[in-house]
């Protein structure tokens, strides 16, 4: 299979039954997306696939021919953290950090679709990602921080 991973063309040889999360972690050495529940509930394996947030434990790699895939490894640019990474740091949006790559990748697509989400919208559209540490308050704040930083008015 050939697809774009964080802007770079990659090729990977897979069996049809191989799930995207395993190709990313075990063959392409992208261990940012995590394996949490393996049953498409927790969102730790969330990646951006052709402009959609998807759970990479429930996508076959063979479905990704010619796709564009974005993982947490693609967020930092030239040594500078993405606004979402900065937001999660500044607002203490994580404790153990296991859910964070999925949270940030999901929030990235949410802010692309809705640059100024209300708190309610953030909670509704982030509901596919579970965090067992933070109680979500600071995750919401981190997304709000990034939304503010990314808005044209603050530039």
């Amino acid at each position, binding site marked *: 299979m050939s697809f774009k991973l964080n802007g770079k063309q990659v090729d990977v040889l897979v*069996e*049809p*039954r*191989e*799930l995207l999360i*395993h190709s990313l972690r075990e063959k392409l050495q992208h261990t940012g997306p995590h394996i949490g529940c*393996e*049953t*498409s*509930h927790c*969102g730790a394996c*969330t990646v951006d696939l052709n402009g*959609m*947030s*998807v*759970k990479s434990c*429930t*996508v*076959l790699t*063979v*479905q990704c*021919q010619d796709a564009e895939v974005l993982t947490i490894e693609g967020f930092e640019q030239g040594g500078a953290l993405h606004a979402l990474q900065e937001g999660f740091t500044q607002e203490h949006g994580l404790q153990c950090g296991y859910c964070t790559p999925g949270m940030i990748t*999901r929030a990235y697509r*949410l802010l692309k679709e809705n640059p100024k989400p209300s708190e309610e919208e953030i909670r*509704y*559209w*982030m*509901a*596919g990602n579970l965090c067992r540490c933070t109680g979500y308050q600071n995750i919401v704040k981190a997304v709000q921080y990034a939304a503010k930083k990314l808005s044209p008015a603050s530039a």
Partner: protein
Amino acid sequence: MIPREFEYHAPRSLPEAIALLKQYGDDAKPLAGGHSLLPMMKMRFAEPAHLVDLGRLPELKGIREVGNALHIGAMTTENELIWSPLVQKKCPLLVEGARLIADPQVRYKGTIGGDIAHGDPANDHPALMLALGASFVLKGSGGERVVPADGFFLGTYSTALKPGEILTEIRVPVPAAGTGWCYAKLKRKTGDFATAAAAVLLRMKGETVQEVSIALTNAGATALKARKAEDSLRGKALNDTAMAEAARLVMTICEPTADQRGDVEYKTAMTGEMTHRALRAARARATH
């Protein structure tokens, strides 16, 4: 969790997909959004030898208004339904239902056609389709047929789809202007299936019920149309007594399966309660 070995096919046209399904017969399964089938394959509850991916067929995408109906391509995702200005305007019940399905990531992949064709009474579209009086376009090597939603669902994971047939389009009659609607769903958490849910469409004439449609999710082996409850309301004033009687009649047809979401008695009571709430909300939204 890894599925059992299978061969993967990615047809580029509908005739090619139909030919593949015919060729491999019972050994093949069509793959839509994959958020029911792939989890079942990972658990080894499903072990198809051939997977025919419908994801690259442009014929199965898109939402069009044709006459007084919406024609929805079977591979339209839940998020596409939610974000469609046409569906928002013409059929808000479908948007309300789709918003309560699974979670955001699943809604990017999960499709209306897959949700229906899977035949799971816990899925939400079957009851929505029954309430809306929708019909389904089924295509196979023998041609095309259009079947009503009412009668399509035969049992758990069993539908009127014949081997080799593909559900290609969902046709939803646009409810008349002024129709009230509600999909009331009780679930333990985001992403869970319904403990109980009821879909209601309601047309009022003054304080009297002119037409009403009620369908239930996860209350039996298939989604259920609550005909007796509907009959009890037509031509009547929609007061609390009438709604309570309709909820009672709904409960008489419930045969839910006990599981971690509750026992039979609880789920039956909750189906009555969801019906009551859906009727109340639909009444508030209907033009009187």
